[in-house]
Protein backbone atom coordinates (compact mmCIF):
# COMPACT_ATOMS: atom_id res chain seq x y z
CA UNK A 1 0.00 0.00 0.00
CA UNK A 2 1.14 3.60 -0.59
CA UNK A 3 1.45 5.12 2.86
CA UNK A 4 2.27 8.74 3.70
CA UNK A 5 3.95 9.83 6.92
CA UNK A 6 4.25 13.33 8.39
CA UNK A 7 6.05 14.00 11.66
CA UNK A 8 9.30 12.06 11.71
CA UNK A 9 10.53 12.82 15.21
CA UNK A 10 11.47 10.42 18.01
CA UNK A 11 8.09 8.67 17.73
CA UNK A 12 7.30 9.10 14.05
CA UNK A 13 10.58 7.94 12.53
CA UNK A 14 10.62 4.38 13.95
CA UNK A 15 6.87 4.07 13.25
CA UNK A 16 7.36 5.05 9.60
CA UNK A 17 10.22 2.58 9.27
CA UNK A 18 8.07 -0.28 10.60
CA UNK A 19 5.51 0.44 7.88
CA UNK A 20 8.20 0.48 5.21
CA UNK A 21 9.74 -2.79 6.45
CA UNK A 22 6.32 -4.43 6.34
CA UNK A 23 6.41 -3.90 2.57
CA UNK A 24 4.50 -0.64 2.19
CA UNK A 25 5.65 2.10 -0.15
CA UNK A 26 6.55 5.07 2.04
CA UNK A 27 6.03 8.76 1.17
CA UNK A 28 7.14 11.50 3.56
CA UNK A 29 6.91 15.25 3.93
CA UNK A 30 8.42 17.52 6.59
CA UNK A 31 8.51 21.25 7.17
CA UNK A 32 12.25 20.95 7.70
CA UNK A 33 13.63 18.77 4.84
CA UNK A 34 16.61 17.63 6.99
CA UNK A 35 14.28 15.59 9.20
CA UNK A 36 13.49 13.21 6.32
CA UNK A 37 17.14 12.68 5.32
CA UNK A 38 18.22 9.06 4.95
CA UNK A 39 14.73 7.54 4.98
CA UNK A 40 13.89 4.84 2.44
CA UNK A 41 10.99 6.95 1.14
CA UNK A 42 9.86 9.31 -1.60
CA UNK A 43 9.92 12.91 -0.39
CA UNK A 44 6.93 15.09 -1.31
CA UNK A 45 7.23 18.87 -1.76
CA UNK A 46 4.00 19.68 0.09
CA UNK A 47 1.59 17.83 2.36
CA UNK A 48 -1.03 18.18 -0.40
CA UNK A 49 1.25 16.42 -2.90
CA UNK A 50 1.92 13.64 -0.39
CA UNK A 51 -1.82 13.27 0.19
CA UNK A 52 -2.51 13.04 -3.54
CA UNK A 53 -0.49 9.85 -4.02
CA UNK A 54 -1.30 7.94 -0.78
CA UNK A 55 -4.15 5.70 0.28
CA UNK A 56 -3.41 6.23 3.96
CA UNK A 57 -1.54 9.11 5.61
CA UNK A 58 -0.16 9.02 9.17
CA UNK A 59 0.56 12.17 11.21
CA UNK A 60 2.53 12.32 14.48
CA UNK A 61 2.76 16.03 15.31
CA UNK A 62 3.12 17.93 18.58
CA UNK A 63 0.27 20.43 18.79
CA UNK A 64 -3.42 20.77 17.92
CA UNK A 65 -2.66 23.87 15.85
CA UNK A 66 0.05 22.11 13.83
CA UNK A 67 -2.13 19.09 13.08
CA UNK A 68 -4.93 21.42 12.01
CA UNK A 69 -2.56 23.37 9.74
CA UNK A 70 -1.17 20.22 8.11
CA UNK A 71 -4.64 18.74 7.60
CA UNK A 72 -6.73 21.79 6.69
CA UNK A 73 -4.26 24.58 5.89
CA UNK A 74 -2.90 25.85 2.57
CA UNK A 75 -1.07 23.10 0.66
CA UNK A 76 -2.32 20.76 3.40
CA UNK A 77 -3.51 17.17 3.20
CA UNK A 78 -7.12 18.21 2.62
CA UNK A 79 -6.10 19.81 -0.69
CA UNK A 80 -4.51 16.61 -1.96
CA UNK A 81 -6.03 13.49 -0.42
CA UNK A 82 -8.57 11.76 -2.63
CA UNK A 83 -12.07 10.62 -1.56
CA UNK A 84 -11.88 7.28 0.19
CA UNK A 85 -8.36 7.81 1.50
CA UNK A 86 -7.74 7.82 5.26
CA UNK A 87 -5.89 10.15 7.60
CA UNK A 88 -4.63 8.36 10.72
CA UNK A 89 -3.61 10.98 13.27
CA UNK A 90 -1.38 9.50 15.98
CA UNK A 91 -0.68 12.90 17.58
CA UNK A 92 -2.00 13.80 21.02
CA UNK A 93 -4.38 16.72 20.50
CA UNK A 94 -7.64 18.09 21.91
CA UNK A 95 -10.65 15.80 21.27
CA UNK A 96 -12.73 18.65 19.85
CA UNK A 97 -9.97 19.63 17.43
CA UNK A 98 -9.81 16.00 16.25
CA UNK A 99 -13.60 16.05 15.72
CA UNK A 100 -13.38 19.35 13.85
CA UNK A 101 -10.67 18.12 11.46
CA UNK A 102 -12.57 14.89 10.88
CA UNK A 103 -15.77 16.78 10.02
CA UNK A 104 -14.00 19.11 7.60
CA UNK A 105 -12.21 16.24 5.82
CA UNK A 106 -15.39 14.20 5.55
CA UNK A 107 -16.92 17.02 3.48
CA UNK A 108 -14.35 16.00 0.86
CA UNK A 109 -14.97 12.28 1.31
CA UNK A 110 -11.73 11.81 3.25
CA UNK A 111 -11.95 9.52 6.30
CA UNK A 112 -10.11 10.12 9.54
CA UNK A 113 -9.18 7.99 12.52
CA UNK A 114 -7.73 9.60 15.65
CA UNK A 115 -5.23 7.07 16.93
CA UNK A 116 -3.02 8.50 19.67
CA UNK A 117 -0.47 6.12 21.12
CA UNK A 118 1.07 5.31 24.48
CA UNK A 119 4.36 3.56 25.11
CA UNK A 120 6.96 6.22 24.40
CA UNK A 121 10.00 6.14 22.14
CA UNK A 122 10.87 2.59 23.26
CA UNK A 123 7.38 1.38 22.40
CA UNK A 124 7.67 2.99 18.97
CA UNK A 125 11.03 1.28 18.32
CA UNK A 126 9.80 -2.11 19.59
CA UNK A 127 6.43 -1.77 17.78
CA UNK A 128 4.65 -2.38 21.07
CA UNK A 129 2.61 0.85 21.27
CA UNK A 130 -0.84 0.89 22.79
CA UNK A 131 -3.12 2.47 20.18
CA UNK A 132 -6.46 4.03 21.13
CA UNK A 133 -8.61 4.70 18.11
CA UNK A 134 -11.61 6.92 17.50
CA UNK A 135 -13.63 6.96 14.29
CA UNK A 136 -15.82 4.82 12.09
CA UNK A 137 -15.38 1.08 12.78
CA UNK A 138 -15.23 0.10 9.10
CA UNK A 139 -12.54 2.72 8.41
CA UNK A 140 -10.52 1.46 11.37
CA UNK A 141 -10.70 -2.10 9.98
CA UNK A 142 -9.23 -0.83 6.69
CA UNK A 143 -6.18 0.64 8.44
CA UNK A 144 -5.88 -2.01 11.18
CA UNK A 145 -3.22 -4.03 9.25
CA UNK A 146 -1.08 -0.89 9.21
CA UNK A 147 -1.64 -0.19 12.92
CA UNK A 148 -0.65 -3.79 13.64
CA UNK A 149 2.83 -2.92 12.30
CA UNK A 150 3.12 -0.34 15.12
CA UNK A 151 1.56 -1.89 18.18
CA UNK A 152 -0.02 -4.95 19.64
CA UNK A 153 -2.88 -3.44 21.56
CA UNK A 154 -5.33 -1.62 19.28
CA UNK A 155 -8.63 -0.65 20.88
CA UNK A 156 -11.53 0.95 19.02
CA UNK A 157 -12.71 3.28 21.78
CA UNK A 158 -15.61 4.92 19.94
CA UNK A 159 -16.49 7.54 17.33
CA UNK A 160 -14.23 10.42 16.19
CA UNK A 161 -12.39 12.06 19.11
CA UNK A 162 -12.85 9.05 21.41
CA UNK A 163 -9.23 8.00 20.90
CA UNK A 164 -8.09 11.43 22.09
CA UNK A 165 -10.38 11.21 25.12
CA UNK A 166 -8.78 7.85 26.01
CA UNK A 167 -5.31 9.37 25.56
CA UNK A 168 -6.25 12.25 27.87
CA UNK A 169 -7.34 9.69 30.48
CA UNK A 170 -4.04 7.85 30.00
CA UNK A 171 -2.01 11.02 30.57
CA UNK A 172 -4.00 11.96 33.69
CA UNK A 173 -3.37 8.60 35.31
CA UNK A 174 0.26 8.36 34.30
CA UNK A 175 1.43 11.83 35.36
CA UNK A 176 -0.59 11.71 38.59
CA UNK A 177 1.21 8.41 39.29
CA UNK A 178 4.57 10.09 38.62
CA UNK A 179 3.65 12.82 41.09
CA UNK A 180 2.59 10.16 43.64
CA UNK A 181 5.91 8.36 43.18
CA UNK A 182 7.80 11.65 43.57
CA UNK A 183 5.93 12.52 46.76
CA UNK A 184 6.61 9.05 48.18
CA UNK A 185 10.31 9.39 47.37
CA UNK A 186 10.31 12.84 48.96
CA UNK A 187 8.65 11.57 52.14
CA UNK A 188 11.13 8.69 52.39
CA UNK A 189 14.16 10.94 51.91
CA UNK A 190 12.87 13.62 54.31
CA UNK A 191 12.29 10.89 56.90
CA UNK A 192 15.88 9.74 56.58
CA UNK A 193 14.93 6.47 54.86
CA UNK A 194 16.67 5.05 51.76
CA UNK A 195 14.51 5.80 48.68
CA UNK A 196 15.88 2.83 46.76
CA UNK A 197 14.88 0.44 49.55
CA UNK A 198 11.39 1.95 49.74
CA UNK A 199 10.96 1.55 46.00
CA UNK A 200 12.21 -2.03 46.23
CA UNK A 201 9.81 -2.82 49.09
CA UNK A 202 6.83 -1.32 47.24
CA UNK A 203 7.49 -3.22 44.04
CA UNK A 204 5.99 -6.41 45.44
CA UNK A 205 2.80 -4.90 46.82
CA UNK A 206 -0.39 -3.15 45.92
CA UNK A 207 1.37 0.11 45.02
CA UNK A 208 3.43 -1.61 42.32
CA UNK A 209 3.13 0.03 38.90
CA UNK A 210 5.09 0.56 35.72
CA UNK A 211 5.44 4.25 36.59
CA UNK A 212 6.94 3.37 39.99
CA UNK A 213 9.31 0.91 38.28
CA UNK A 214 10.54 3.20 35.53
CA UNK A 215 10.14 6.72 36.88
CA UNK A 216 10.84 5.65 40.47
CA UNK A 217 14.16 4.20 39.31
CA UNK A 218 15.07 7.49 37.62
CA UNK A 219 14.22 9.36 40.83
CA UNK A 220 16.32 7.03 42.97
CA UNK A 221 19.32 7.30 40.64
CA UNK A 222 18.58 11.02 40.10
CA UNK A 223 18.69 10.51 36.35
CA UNK A 224 16.55 13.34 35.02
CA UNK A 225 17.66 13.15 31.36
CA UNK A 226 14.55 12.76 29.21
CA UNK A 227 12.82 9.68 28.59
CA UNK A 228 9.69 11.74 28.00
CA UNK A 229 10.23 15.48 27.94
CA UNK A 230 8.18 17.02 30.74
CA UNK A 231 7.08 19.89 28.47
CA UNK A 232 4.99 17.38 26.51
CA UNK A 233 3.16 16.26 29.65
CA UNK A 234 2.72 19.93 30.54
CA UNK A 235 1.14 20.48 27.12
CA UNK A 236 -1.09 17.42 27.56
CA UNK A 237 -2.32 18.65 30.94
CA UNK A 238 -3.42 21.88 29.28
CA UNK A 239 -5.51 19.77 26.89
CA UNK A 240 -6.91 17.58 29.66
CA UNK A 241 -8.02 20.49 31.83
CA UNK A 242 -9.51 22.27 28.83
CA UNK A 243 -11.47 19.13 27.94
CA UNK A 244 -12.71 18.85 31.54
CA UNK A 245 -13.77 22.47 31.48
CA UNK A 246 -15.69 21.99 28.24
CA UNK A 247 -17.81 19.21 29.73
CA UNK A 248 -18.01 20.81 33.18
CA UNK A 249 -16.42 18.18 35.38
CA UNK A 250 -14.23 18.75 38.40
CA UNK A 251 -10.77 17.16 38.41
CA UNK A 252 -9.11 18.39 41.59
CA UNK A 253 -6.11 16.04 41.49
CA UNK A 254 -5.31 16.71 37.83
CA UNK A 255 -5.55 20.45 38.48
CA UNK A 256 -3.09 20.19 41.35
CA UNK A 257 -0.64 18.07 39.36
CA UNK A 258 -0.88 20.64 36.54
CA UNK A 259 0.35 23.31 38.94
CA UNK A 260 3.37 21.17 39.86
CA UNK A 261 4.07 20.86 36.13
CA UNK A 262 3.81 24.66 35.80
CA UNK A 263 6.40 24.99 38.57
CA UNK A 264 8.61 22.46 36.77
CA UNK A 265 8.41 24.56 33.59
CA UNK A 266 9.27 27.69 35.56
CA UNK A 267 12.51 26.02 36.68
CA UNK A 268 13.47 25.49 33.03
CA UNK A 269 13.23 21.69 33.28
CA UNK A 270 10.79 21.28 30.37
CA UNK A 271 13.24 19.26 28.29
CA UNK A 272 14.15 17.01 31.21
CA UNK A 273 12.22 13.91 32.22
CA UNK A 274 8.94 14.26 34.10
CA UNK A 275 10.67 12.47 37.01
CA UNK A 276 11.80 16.07 37.69
CA UNK A 277 8.51 16.48 39.59
CA UNK A 278 10.64 15.18 42.48
CA UNK A 279 12.94 18.19 42.11
CA UNK A 280 9.90 20.52 42.27
CA UNK A 281 9.04 19.06 45.69
CA UNK A 282 12.63 19.59 46.79
CA UNK A 283 12.34 23.33 46.06
CA UNK A 284 10.12 23.79 49.09
Amino acid at each position, binding site marked *: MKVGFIGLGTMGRPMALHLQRAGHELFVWARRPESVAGLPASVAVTAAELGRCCEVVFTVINSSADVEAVALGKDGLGEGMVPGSVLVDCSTIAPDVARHISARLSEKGIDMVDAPVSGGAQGAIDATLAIMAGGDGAVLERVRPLLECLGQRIVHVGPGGAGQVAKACNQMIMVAAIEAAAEAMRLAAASGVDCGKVKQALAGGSAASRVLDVMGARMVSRDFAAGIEARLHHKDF*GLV*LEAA*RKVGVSMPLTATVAQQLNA*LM*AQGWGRDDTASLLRVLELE
Partner: protein
Amino acid sequence: MKIAFIGLGIMGRPMALNLVKGGHAITVWARRAESMRTLLEAGAQGAASPAEASRGNELVISMVADAPDVAEVMRGVAQGAAPGLVAVDMSTIAPAAARQIGIDLAAAGVDFIDAPVSGGEVGAIAGTLSIMAGGSDTGFAKALPAFECMGKNIVHVGASGAGQVAKAANQIVTGMGVLAVAEAFAFAAKNGVDRSKVREALLGGFAYSKILENHGQRMLDRNFKPGFKSWMHEKDLNIVMQTAHELGLCLPGSAATAQMFNAMVGSGMGEEDSIAVLKLLEKLSGQE
Protein backbone atom coordinates in the same frame (compact mmCIF):
# COMPACT_ATOMS: atom_id res chain seq x y z
CA MET B 1 -17.43 64.27 24.76
CA LYS B 2 -18.75 62.26 21.79
CA ILE B 3 -18.64 58.64 22.86
CA ALA B 4 -19.77 55.40 21.18
CA PHE B 5 -20.81 52.51 23.46
CA ILE B 6 -20.94 48.94 22.14
CA GLY B 7 -22.53 46.06 24.05
CA LEU B 8 -25.62 46.77 26.16
CA GLY B 9 -26.02 43.76 28.43
CA ILE B 10 -26.49 43.60 32.21
CA MET B 11 -23.35 45.68 32.73
CA GLY B 12 -23.15 47.74 29.54
CA ARG B 13 -26.65 49.21 29.70
CA PRO B 14 -26.36 50.96 33.10
CA MET B 15 -22.77 52.02 32.30
CA ALA B 16 -23.92 53.71 29.07
CA LEU B 17 -26.86 55.31 30.91
CA ASN B 18 -24.42 56.84 33.40
CA LEU B 19 -22.49 58.37 30.50
CA VAL B 20 -25.73 59.93 29.17
CA LYS B 21 -26.47 61.27 32.67
CA GLY B 22 -22.94 62.68 32.74
CA GLY B 23 -23.83 64.89 29.80
CA HIS B 24 -21.89 63.05 27.09
CA ALA B 25 -23.21 62.60 23.54
CA ILE B 26 -23.65 58.85 23.21
CA THR B 27 -24.02 56.62 20.15
CA VAL B 28 -24.86 52.98 20.87
CA TRP B 29 -24.73 49.66 19.05
CA ALA B 30 -25.74 46.21 20.25
CA ARG B 31 -26.07 42.93 18.38
CA ARG B 32 -29.73 42.63 19.37
CA ALA B 33 -31.62 45.81 18.42
CA GLU B 34 -34.03 45.53 21.39
CA SER B 35 -31.09 45.89 23.82
CA MET B 36 -30.67 49.46 22.53
CA ARG B 37 -34.20 50.61 23.39
CA THR B 38 -33.54 51.91 26.93
CA LEU B 39 -30.61 53.97 25.70
CA LEU B 40 -32.46 55.39 22.69
CA GLU B 41 -35.29 56.45 25.03
CA ALA B 42 -32.72 58.15 27.25
CA GLY B 43 -31.53 60.22 24.29
CA ALA B 44 -28.70 58.19 22.79
CA GLN B 45 -28.24 57.80 19.03
CA GLY B 46 -28.42 54.32 17.49
CA ALA B 47 -25.89 52.95 14.99
CA ALA B 48 -26.17 50.09 12.51
CA SER B 49 -22.70 48.62 13.06
CA PRO B 50 -19.55 49.05 15.20
CA ALA B 51 -17.94 50.86 12.23
CA GLU B 52 -20.83 53.31 12.03
CA ALA B 53 -20.83 53.75 15.81
CA SER B 54 -17.17 54.73 15.87
CA ARG B 55 -17.44 57.17 12.95
CA GLY B 56 -17.07 60.80 14.14
CA ASN B 57 -16.59 59.89 17.80
CA GLU B 58 -13.57 60.63 20.00
CA LEU B 59 -13.95 57.63 22.27
CA VAL B 60 -15.37 54.13 21.73
CA ILE B 61 -16.17 51.84 24.67
CA SER B 62 -17.01 48.13 24.38
CA MET B 63 -18.54 45.84 27.01
CA VAL B 64 -19.09 42.38 25.49
CA ALA B 65 -18.71 38.72 26.47
CA ASP B 66 -15.40 37.29 25.35
CA ALA B 67 -12.13 37.92 23.51
CA PRO B 68 -13.38 36.89 20.03
CA ASP B 69 -16.31 39.32 20.42
CA VAL B 70 -13.97 42.14 21.43
CA ALA B 71 -11.67 41.42 18.47
CA GLU B 72 -14.62 41.38 16.06
CA VAL B 73 -16.12 44.61 17.41
CA MET B 74 -12.74 46.34 17.31
CA ARG B 75 -12.13 45.31 13.69
CA GLY B 76 -15.34 47.20 12.86
CA VAL B 77 -14.33 50.14 15.05
CA ALA B 78 -11.00 50.41 13.20
CA GLN B 79 -12.88 50.72 9.89
CA GLY B 80 -14.87 53.74 11.08
CA ALA B 81 -12.10 55.34 13.14
CA ALA B 82 -10.90 58.91 12.68
CA PRO B 83 -7.23 59.59 13.49
CA GLY B 84 -6.61 59.87 17.22
CA LEU B 85 -9.54 57.67 18.25
CA VAL B 86 -9.20 56.01 21.66
CA ALA B 87 -10.91 52.59 21.95
CA VAL B 88 -11.58 51.26 25.44
CA ASP B 89 -12.59 47.65 26.15
CA MET B 90 -14.15 47.08 29.57
CA SER B 91 -14.90 43.37 29.07
CA THR B 92 -12.90 40.73 30.96
CA ILE B 93 -10.60 38.89 28.55
CA ALA B 94 -7.13 37.30 28.69
CA PRO B 95 -4.22 39.76 29.08
CA ALA B 96 -2.51 38.24 26.03
CA ALA B 97 -5.66 38.73 23.93
CA ALA B 98 -5.93 42.37 25.06
CA ARG B 99 -2.29 43.02 24.15
CA GLN B 100 -2.83 41.54 20.69
CA ILE B 101 -5.93 43.68 20.08
CA GLY B 102 -3.88 46.71 21.18
CA ILE B 103 -1.19 45.86 18.61
CA ASP B 104 -3.75 45.33 15.84
CA LEU B 105 -5.51 48.62 16.59
CA ALA B 106 -2.25 50.57 16.81
CA ALA B 107 -1.62 49.54 13.19
CA ALA B 108 -4.92 51.27 12.31
CA GLY B 109 -3.94 54.41 14.26
CA VAL B 110 -6.28 53.67 17.17
CA ASP B 111 -5.04 53.89 20.78
CA PHE B 112 -6.40 50.91 22.74
CA ILE B 113 -7.02 50.85 26.49
CA ASP B 114 -8.02 47.69 28.36
CA ALA B 115 -10.18 48.70 31.33
CA PRO B 116 -12.05 45.80 32.92
CA VAL B 117 -14.25 46.48 35.91
CA SER B 118 -15.20 44.98 39.24
CA GLY B 119 -18.33 45.68 41.25
CA GLY B 120 -21.04 43.83 39.35
CA GLU B 121 -24.45 45.01 38.22
CA VAL B 122 -24.97 46.96 41.47
CA GLY B 123 -21.76 48.91 40.92
CA ALA B 124 -22.62 49.50 37.26
CA ILE B 125 -26.02 51.02 38.16
CA ALA B 126 -24.67 53.10 41.05
CA GLY B 127 -21.67 54.29 39.00
CA THR B 128 -19.30 52.94 41.64
CA LEU B 129 -17.34 50.34 39.63
CA SER B 130 -13.67 49.71 40.23
CA ILE B 131 -11.91 50.33 36.93
CA MET B 132 -8.41 48.92 36.27
CA ALA B 133 -6.82 50.26 33.12
CA GLY B 134 -3.87 49.32 30.94
CA GLY B 135 -2.41 51.32 28.04
CA SER B 136 -0.88 54.69 27.19
CA ASP B 137 -0.98 57.73 29.50
CA THR B 138 -2.60 59.88 26.81
CA GLY B 139 -5.27 57.27 26.03
CA PHE B 140 -6.04 56.87 29.73
CA ALA B 141 -6.27 60.66 30.19
CA LYS B 142 -8.71 60.91 27.28
CA ALA B 143 -10.92 58.15 28.72
CA LEU B 144 -10.78 59.37 32.33
CA PRO B 145 -13.83 61.70 32.16
CA ALA B 146 -15.88 58.75 30.87
CA PHE B 147 -14.48 56.44 33.57
CA GLU B 148 -15.46 58.99 36.22
CA CYS B 149 -19.12 58.72 35.17
CA MET B 150 -19.05 54.93 35.60
CA GLY B 151 -16.72 54.22 38.49
CA LYS B 152 -15.14 55.36 41.73
CA ASN B 153 -11.83 53.57 42.22
CA ILE B 154 -10.06 54.20 38.91
CA VAL B 155 -6.46 53.01 38.61
CA HIS B 156 -4.10 53.20 35.65
CA VAL B 157 -2.28 49.95 36.40
CA GLY B 158 0.33 49.99 33.63
CA ALA B 159 0.97 49.27 29.95
CA SER B 160 -1.39 47.49 27.56
CA GLY B 161 -2.83 44.32 29.14
CA ALA B 162 -2.06 45.47 32.70
CA GLY B 163 -5.73 46.20 33.37
CA GLN B 164 -6.64 42.62 32.47
CA VAL B 165 -3.79 41.29 34.64
CA ALA B 166 -5.25 43.25 37.58
CA LYS B 167 -8.74 41.92 36.79
CA ALA B 168 -7.45 38.33 36.66
CA ALA B 169 -5.78 38.95 40.04
CA ASN B 170 -9.12 40.29 41.29
CA GLN B 171 -10.86 37.08 40.17
CA ILE B 172 -8.24 34.95 41.95
CA VAL B 173 -8.94 36.78 45.20
CA THR B 174 -12.73 36.84 44.83
CA GLY B 175 -12.94 33.23 43.58
CA MET B 176 -10.88 31.85 46.43
CA GLY B 177 -12.57 34.28 48.82
CA VAL B 178 -16.04 32.99 48.01
CA LEU B 179 -14.82 29.40 48.34
CA ALA B 180 -13.08 30.22 51.66
CA VAL B 181 -16.25 31.71 53.16
CA ALA B 182 -18.34 28.79 51.87
CA GLU B 183 -15.85 26.28 53.37
CA ALA B 184 -15.86 28.12 56.70
CA PHE B 185 -19.67 27.96 56.77
CA ALA B 186 -19.71 24.27 55.81
CA PHE B 187 -17.16 23.65 58.58
CA ALA B 188 -19.25 25.47 61.17
CA ALA B 189 -22.47 23.73 60.18
CA LYS B 190 -20.97 20.22 60.22
CA ASN B 191 -19.70 21.02 63.73
CA GLY B 192 -23.22 21.96 64.75
CA VAL B 193 -22.38 25.65 65.19
CA ASP B 194 -24.60 28.54 64.05
CA ARG B 195 -23.04 29.96 60.89
CA SER B 196 -24.52 33.42 61.33
CA LYS B 197 -22.83 33.69 64.73
CA VAL B 198 -19.53 32.58 63.18
CA ARG B 199 -19.88 35.26 60.50
CA GLU B 200 -20.65 37.87 63.12
CA ALA B 201 -17.62 36.86 65.20
CA LEU B 202 -15.27 36.87 62.22
CA LEU B 203 -16.37 40.26 60.91
CA GLY B 204 -14.40 42.00 63.67
CA GLY B 205 -11.06 40.30 63.00
CA PHE B 206 -8.46 39.66 60.31
CA ALA B 207 -10.85 37.40 58.39
CA TYR B 208 -13.02 40.42 57.67
CA SER B 209 -13.70 40.99 53.99
CA LYS B 210 -16.44 42.40 51.83
CA ILE B 211 -16.99 38.85 50.63
CA LEU B 212 -17.53 37.58 54.19
CA GLU B 213 -19.86 40.49 54.90
CA ASN B 214 -21.95 40.66 51.70
CA HIS B 215 -21.63 37.25 50.04
CA GLY B 216 -21.58 35.60 53.47
CA GLN B 217 -24.92 37.18 54.32
CA ARG B 218 -26.40 36.03 51.02
CA MET B 219 -25.16 32.48 51.73
CA LEU B 220 -26.94 32.60 55.11
CA ASP B 221 -30.09 33.84 53.36
CA ARG B 222 -29.60 31.12 50.75
CA ASN B 223 -30.08 33.80 48.12
CA PHE B 224 -28.29 32.36 45.12
CA LYS B 225 -29.68 34.80 42.55
CA PRO B 226 -26.96 36.55 40.51
CA GLY B 227 -25.13 38.96 41.12
CA PHE B 228 -22.21 37.41 39.41
CA LYS B 229 -23.06 34.20 37.59
CA SER B 230 -20.88 31.19 38.30
CA TRP B 231 -20.30 30.46 34.59
CA MET B 232 -18.73 33.90 34.31
CA HIS B 233 -16.48 33.31 37.27
CA GLU B 234 -15.56 29.96 35.72
CA LYS B 235 -14.68 31.74 32.47
CA ASP B 236 -12.53 34.28 34.32
CA LEU B 237 -10.70 31.60 36.32
CA ASN B 238 -10.04 29.81 33.04
CA ILE B 239 -8.25 32.96 31.85
CA VAL B 240 -6.17 32.80 35.04
CA MET B 241 -5.31 29.12 34.61
CA GLN B 242 -4.54 29.42 30.89
CA THR B 243 -2.20 32.33 31.60
CA ALA B 244 -0.54 30.39 34.44
CA HIS B 245 -0.04 27.43 32.07
CA GLU B 246 1.56 29.66 29.43
CA LEU B 247 3.83 31.45 31.90
CA GLY B 248 4.86 28.45 34.02
CA LEU B 249 3.22 29.71 37.18
CA CYS B 250 2.19 27.47 40.07
CA LEU B 251 -1.27 28.46 41.40
CA PRO B 252 -2.53 25.53 43.48
CA GLY B 253 -5.34 27.43 45.21
CA SER B 254 -6.72 28.93 42.02
CA ALA B 255 -6.51 25.52 40.36
CA ALA B 256 -8.59 23.87 43.07
CA THR B 257 -11.10 26.72 42.99
CA ALA B 258 -11.41 26.58 39.19
CA GLN B 259 -12.30 22.89 39.43
CA MET B 260 -15.13 23.66 41.84
CA PHE B 261 -16.52 26.21 39.40
CA ASN B 262 -16.19 23.65 36.55
CA ALA B 263 -18.31 21.30 38.57
CA MET B 264 -20.92 24.00 39.22
CA VAL B 265 -21.30 24.76 35.52
CA GLY B 266 -21.40 21.03 34.71
CA SER B 267 -24.09 20.32 37.29
CA GLY B 268 -26.43 23.05 36.07
CA MET B 269 -25.59 25.82 38.56
CA GLY B 270 -23.97 28.06 35.93
CA GLU B 271 -26.74 30.64 35.98
CA GLU B 272 -26.72 30.93 39.77
CA ASP B 273 -24.45 33.30 41.67
CA SER B 274 -20.95 32.02 42.32
CA ILE B 275 -21.79 31.81 46.04
CA ALA B 276 -23.81 28.70 45.12
CA VAL B 277 -20.46 26.93 45.48
CA LEU B 278 -21.71 26.52 49.07
CA LYS B 279 -24.39 24.11 47.79
CA LEU B 280 -21.75 22.06 45.98
CA LEU B 281 -19.65 21.80 49.17
CA GLU B 282 -22.72 20.76 51.16
CA LYS B 283 -23.49 18.08 48.60
CA LEU B 284 -19.94 16.72 48.73
CA SER B 285 -20.04 16.53 52.53
CA GLY B 286 -23.55 15.13 52.76
CA GLN B 287 -24.94 18.27 54.36
CA GLU B 288 -27.97 18.68 52.11
